[in-house]
């Protein structure tokens, strides 16, 4: 990483830390959700962007993570921070197991299989033998964590800082993984899986693991989302969530780490803007935004930023 990049990241982090002190609690809550989405998008991007496996069902892993956190907090009195590793582990295993049979499916067929997962999970959550834990259609209400050690900040601000810390850890881990041998293997499989195999990459293992780790990221995001919203119910995790996540990575930029943040900002704020423009057809307005973005920035926001930076650098050299 170049020095310039390091400085840039430091500035972004500082801005992120200062944010809750400058804006209202409601905005803090919204930015908290942006961080949550960013983690989920990063997870999906590993799978779809880096590894080329399309998932239309990541909302299901988000839901599993959310329910893990909610059930542990509500039924077993586990503190909120301790629910994250559990949600991560559960989603890792579920994702890995789902990835195994999904290995046989490529492209659109995999998209359909994951779509089935995303569609069916809300119904499974309503299943009455699971009601003891899931609360059925009524869902689970959980309490909001208070800031520890008597810190002079409110619950929203504390939760934002907590989420920010988790986000930074998750991004650093992802950066480490994707920049190294594993990342190269993932991309090799995406671009030329026969060549990758010839090079000695264990395709089956890497693909399944990619599924597992991707699900783990999304599950952690789900748990953080549940803690921020303080409520989970099957209606919260319909198939639309999965679609929105896919929109997020495409808009943000496929196979780009920073793209997850741009994508998260898009899926958090653009629907609200659309709703303010038109009550009659908010999703039509959203669609116009979507087409606009895809048309103007075909490589996603991250790609557009990269190109703009490169152009500026060239201009500076020419002078």
């Amino acid at each position, binding site marked *: 990483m170049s020095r310039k990049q390091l400085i840039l990241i430091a500035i972004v982090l500082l801005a992120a830390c200062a944010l809750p002190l400058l804006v*209202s*609690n*409601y*905005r803090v*809550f*919204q930015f908290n*959700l942006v961080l949550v989405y960013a983690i989920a998008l990063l997870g999906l991007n590993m799978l779809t962007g880096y590894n080329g496996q399309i998932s239309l069902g990541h909302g299901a892993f988000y839901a599993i993570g959310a329910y893990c956190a909610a059930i542990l907090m509500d039924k077993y009195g586990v503190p909120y921070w301790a629910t994250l590793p559990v949600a991560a582990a559960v989603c890792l295993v579920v994702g890995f197991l789902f990835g195994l049979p999904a290995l046989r499916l490529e492209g659109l067929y995999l998209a359909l299989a994951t779509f089935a997962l995303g569609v069916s999970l809300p*119904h499974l959550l*309503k*299943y*009455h033998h699971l009601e003891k834990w899931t609360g*059925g*259609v*009524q*869902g689970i*209400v959980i*309490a909001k964590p208070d800031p520890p050690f008597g810190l002079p900040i409110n619950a929203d601000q504390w939760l934002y800082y907590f989420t920010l810390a988790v986000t930074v850890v998750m991004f650093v881990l992802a950066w480490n993984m994707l920049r190294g041998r594993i990342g190269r293997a993932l991309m090799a499989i995406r671009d030329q899986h026969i060549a990758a195999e010839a090079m000695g990459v264990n395709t089956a293992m890497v693909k399944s693991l990619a599924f597992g780790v991707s699900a783990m990221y999304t599950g952690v995001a789900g748990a953080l*989302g549940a803690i921020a*919203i*303080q*409520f989970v*119910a099957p*209606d*919260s995790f*319909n198939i*639309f969530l999965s679609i929105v996540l896919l929109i997020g990575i495409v808009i943000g930029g496929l196979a780009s780490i920073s793209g997850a943040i741009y994508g998260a900002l898009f899926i958090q704020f653009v629907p609200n803007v659309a*709703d303010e423009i038109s*009550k*009659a057809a*908010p*999703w039509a307005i959203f669609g116009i935004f979507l087409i606009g973005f895809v048309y103007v920035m075909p490589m996603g926001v991250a790609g557009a930023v990269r190109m703009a930076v490169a152009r500026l650098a060239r201009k500076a050299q020419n002078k």
Partner: protein
Amino acid sequence: MKLVPIAALLAVAFASPAALAQKKYDPGANDKEIRIGNTNPYSGPASAYGTIGKSIGAYFKMVNEQGGINGRKVVWVSYDDGYSPPKTVEMVRKLVEQDQVLFVFQTLGTPPNTAIHKYMNMKKVPQLHVATGATKWNDPKNFPWTMGWQPNYQTEGRIYAQHILSTNPKAKIGILYQNDDYGKDYLKGMKDGLGDKAGMIVREVSYEVTDPTVDSQIVQLQASGADTFFNITTPKFAAQAIRKAYDIGWKPAHYLNNVSTSIGSVLKPAGLEKSVGLISTQYLKDPLDEQWKDDASIKEWRAFMAKYYPEGNLADGSNLYGYTVAQTLHQVLKQAGNDLTRANIMKQAAAMKGYRAETMLPGIRINTDGGDFAPIESVQLIRFDGQQWKRFGQIMGK
């Protein structure tokens, strides 16, 4: 004389605190306006209900043109939540923390309202007249900032029980219910209503929302020998149950919950001839009902729709519902006068004595007090004659 102006000044100085004391405001209210927040599903699977939010907005547009309430204009801030609880939380926080509304009104759906239940009560912001029939909104002890409006499911269940007891005390009752809070609320109402006669229930069967059909449940109920059927189902399953019961030749006294009384989406798919004799309840006038054709309140409502909400559907009962619940709120705000604090809004909403909007059925009144947060608790029974629902009997309930 110099003393006179001084005396006058003194008089003003002493009088003004008293004058000021009459006007009290919380965020969202001032001399000019009252800000009211709302979420409705304008998009998504439940978007058919979105027309309620629009008709309420149109109602307050009319009120504002006529001079507002106690000289204040109503600002109606309504956001789309797509019936998704996380979105409801986000939008309601926006309403309370950023838009600074005085209270939220008619937020729609049981899951969305459950998601904000704790938050509203923690913030002490009224969650007034929510648009759901769950019984849990009537819990002033634990949730003093939340109140329902429509008759709740338990009340309705009790009323069917009363009717069964008075018409057929030897009935053998079979019950089909949806296995969730909604179904269990009705079931509890029925059992409470039967009291020590709960043994009249010979069979209870349930179904899941995820089940493809309820055919086998209907066969089980017929086999139990029940001659009275309490049908607690949502529209799709209600249509299946009505058709199946008719097709296998089971002819019980058939009570259908108010949730599924739509002729267009339940009775037509089931078959109108198979629906003859169904019994259910109503508490608002039905705009399609011939007998209200020349009714003054329905005419007024049509004029309102034509002027303020011309794109709204006159055949959609939701538009009449929105108009009626907005009238109720109008009354609460009139009662509140110049004391527009959140505490006083709840106090006035819990002090409705015999109020009625004319679009409610004759005889139905709203009564609330500090321990009773259930505004409408009476309904009238209706029977389907093959063409439309016909009212019969007395107003039942409180």
